[in-house]
């Protein structure tokens, strides 16, 4: 239970075995390398060489992964993958695979296809642009070479002009022709009524007058259109040519895409395996790179759990006789990482602590302390026996179907398995089974349901509100006692009493006083409550003034500290969410049953609609309520409970492990 004891290891070995050592440390999955602290420290050259060689392979793997994965269709659904349906391989099989796979060849093949694809796409966009230009030149019936090249004496231009300016252009050209040279103006068909549209025009003229014609056109509002020099035939012929080439290029593009997909289908499984392999090697070498060296020996330091020390020592010493491993307890000034070590009932709750922040090595592990509360709170928030059965059944089915779920995922699922039990219990005692399903549809079971009910939030919510707040007080007071214990452990008696015990006395005293006066407890509890609250308040008052000088500031800070009791009031009221969320799930369930009942009244198809509404509605309700029932009890742990005694701040234990992103790698 709690934070596992660690040992600090100093391992001296000959450089010739550094690879085996690194592999062995990684295989144990229980050694966290301690970085060399000095800056600019050079790493052992042998390891550096391995790292840079490995980095080359990793670059190829990353390239292939990035390029091919979008084209890869995984035959196994993503959910199955997440639940552990992945190939199982050993490191030696991967090594074999790495030596027989020609990654470079695959990369070259992929790069060629990528390159060709880019090429085809470029040509395609060019052809599409040409087609769009050509489709507006349909009015021009001569070969376009007249414009792009011209003959010996003749040349031309193409432009656009506003419809309203065409007459002006015609007139100007007419004047011009009178003086010297013939020009031919060809105008694309246009709608005479639309004055502002752009109309395509082409103009043919003698080469000798080009400059003056262009000037004249510009003056009359023609904007010139650049015609690509490759156009030689008539627009119609050119258009046909480019349309054909687009069909051709599109076929090529889809060919290349298929080719890439084929490569992906063939290579991605291998690439994924190799990705895990090379990433594992990278972690391994980066671990031993943090070593000090002499000419022929290396020193690696790492943390390992004390419980596995003997096993790891045996494994390492089997590698070579020239190895020296010394194990030592952490020194007082050292801050080792923390590894949560909880039994199988508590372990699924570890994630709740880790999501917040790991404890420090010498700190308290809050997991076993929060687990029972989280369990109860979750049960109260979801609070429905039917929903609990659905969750429980689904999880059992998942565990039965998927045997290879990774440990982390399995623990997280188990958290919900455990919590479905508390949900079931609370559902039974509050009489909620798929909302009010029993009352609405199976009245036969109502007596059974009622006989098991201990609380009834629907007709007597104040009772459940009282229970919620009482749980809150217990939770908070438990937190204060842990804080006091933590301070006493390190000898801070005054702080433990002034900060924690005092508030415990005050709050518990006030609760006894209140319930006693309300007649819920025998009257002599009133006196006990008064005494406890009084002592608590006095201690708080005195403790707050401890560091202050002068009687006035002592008094002021004392009152300020007592004013802090409002925050406890807020904390306690915060637990009313247990009632509200439990209510939420029950009423949503009720609404769904109500809608189902209404739907059932529709003639002929009503029963079918009712079934769909009830099943679909309850699935939705389960999903949304699980989210709420997870988040809100978690908040009660993090904000109200942890606020009293826990701040985390430790570094989580991160041992050297094998990379398992795509496949399950065994050592």
């Amino acid at each position, binding site marked *: 239970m709690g934070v596992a004891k660690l040992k600090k290891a100093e391992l001296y070995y000959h450089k010739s075995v550094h690879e085996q050592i690194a592999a062995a440390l990684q295989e144990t999955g229980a050694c966290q390398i301690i970085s060399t602290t000095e800056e600019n420290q050079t790493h052992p050259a042998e390891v550096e060489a391995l790292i840079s060689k490995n980095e080359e392979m990793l670059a190829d793997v990353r390239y292939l992964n990035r390029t091919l994965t979008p084209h890869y269709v995984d035959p196994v659904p993503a959910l199955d993958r997440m639940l552990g349906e992945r190939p199982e391989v050993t490191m030696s099989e991967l090594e074999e695979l790495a030596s027989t796979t020609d990654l470079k060849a695959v990369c070259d093949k992929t790069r060629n296809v990528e390159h060709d694809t880019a090429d085809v796409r470029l040509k395609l966009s060019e052809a599409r642009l040409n087609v769009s230009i050509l489709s507006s030149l349909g009015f021009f019936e001569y070969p376009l070479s007249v414009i792009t090249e011209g003959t010996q004496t003749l040349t031309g231009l193409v432009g656009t002009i506003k419809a309203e300016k065409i007459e002006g252009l015609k007139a100007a050209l007419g004047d011009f022709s009178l003086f010297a040279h013939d020009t031919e103006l060809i105008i694309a068909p246009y709608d005479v009524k639309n004055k502002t549209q752009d109309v395509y025009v082409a103009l043919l003229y003698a080469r000798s007058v080009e400059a003056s014609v262009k000037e004249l056109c510009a003056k009359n509002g023609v904007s010139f259109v650049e015609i690509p020099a490759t156009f030689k035939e008539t627009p119609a012929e050119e258009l046909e040519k480019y349309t054909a080439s687009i069909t051709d290029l599109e076929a090529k593009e889809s060919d290349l895409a298929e080719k890439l997909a084929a490569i992906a289908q063939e290579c991605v499984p291998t690439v994924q395996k190799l990705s895990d392999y090379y990433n594992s090697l990278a972690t391994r070498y980066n671990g031993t790179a943090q070593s000090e060296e002499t000419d022929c020996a290396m020193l690696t330091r790492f943390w390992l759990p004390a419980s596995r020390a003997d096993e790891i020592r045996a494994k390492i010493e089997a590698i070579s006789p020239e190895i020296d491993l010394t194990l030592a307890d952490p020194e007082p000034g050292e801050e080792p990482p923390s590894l949560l070590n909880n039994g199988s009932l508590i372990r699924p709750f570890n994630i709740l602590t880790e*999501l917040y922040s790991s404890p420090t090595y010498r700190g308290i592990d809050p997991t076993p302390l929060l687990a029972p509360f989280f369990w109860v709170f979750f049960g109260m928030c979801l609070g429905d026996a039917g929903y609990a059965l659905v969750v429980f059944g689904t999880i059992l089915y998942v565990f039965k179907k998927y045997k290879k779920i990774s440990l982390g995922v399995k623990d997280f699922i188990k958290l919900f398995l455990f919590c479905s039990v508390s949900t079931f219990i609370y559902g039974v005692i509050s009489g909620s089974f798929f909302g009010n399903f029993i009352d609405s549809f199976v009245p036969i079971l109502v007596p059974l349901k009622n006989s098991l009910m201990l609380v009834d939030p629907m007709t007597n919510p104040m009772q459940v509100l009282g229970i919620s707040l009482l749980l809150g007080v217990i939770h908070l007071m438990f937190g204060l006692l842990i804080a006091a214990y933590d301070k006493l452990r390190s000898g801070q008696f005054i702080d433990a009493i002034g900060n924690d015990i005092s508030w415990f006395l005050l709050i518990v005293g006030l609760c006894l006083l209140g319930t006693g006066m309300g007649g819920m407890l025998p009257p002599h509890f009133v006196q006990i409550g008064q005494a406890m609250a009084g002592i608590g308040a006095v201690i708080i008052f005195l403790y707050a003034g401890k560091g202050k000088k002068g009687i006035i500031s002592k008094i002021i800070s004392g009152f300020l500290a007592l004013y802090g009791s409002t925050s406890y009031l807020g904390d306690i009221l915060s637990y009313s969410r247990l009632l*509200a*969320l439990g209510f939420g799930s029950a009423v*949503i369930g009720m609404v769904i049953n109500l809608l189902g009942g209404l739907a059932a009244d529709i003639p002929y198809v009503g029963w079918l609609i009712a079934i769909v509404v009830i099943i679909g509605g309850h699935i939705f309700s389960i999903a*949304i309520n699980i*989210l709420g029932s997870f988040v*809100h009890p*978690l*908040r009660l742990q*993090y904000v109200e409970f942890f606020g009293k005694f826990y701040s985390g701040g430790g570094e989580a234990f991160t041992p050297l492990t094998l990379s398992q992103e795509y496949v399950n790698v065994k050592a």
Partner: protein
Amino acid sequence: MEMLGLSLALFGAALAAALAGIGSAIGIGVAGGAAAGVMTEDPNKFGSCLILQALPGTQGIYGLLIAFFVLNKIGLLGGAGAYALTWNQGLQIFASCLPIGLVGWYSAIWQGRTSAASIQMISKKPEAMGKAIILPAMVETYAVLALLTSILMLMGVQVG
């Protein structure tokens, strides 16, 4: 005037569902924008982004819940038809709907903003998911309290 009570009660139910629903829609929209931005960089974050985006959605459900509660209470959902409410009873039901309507509306918007910020946070620090969920949940507290207030008030109103 004999229908004024019923109208007031319905007006309250409408406000509860509508205001809280509007708030949730805005909140989810704000968070969704941030989620889409993060996913352009890293599509693998879909799962965690979706959870964070869904958080401001509960207010809409709370509003709906209260609206149904009211409809049920005034007998509109059964086959028997609505009870005759005095205008006083109608006003009481109307008042009971205000907490979840108003707080649901506003808290969902602010929760959406916090969710959006949390989504930004996990884009840089995916391991901080626990903290990222708790920050928006802090805002939701007040919607939960408003829901509780509305429910307790409604249960106290005597009709029929």
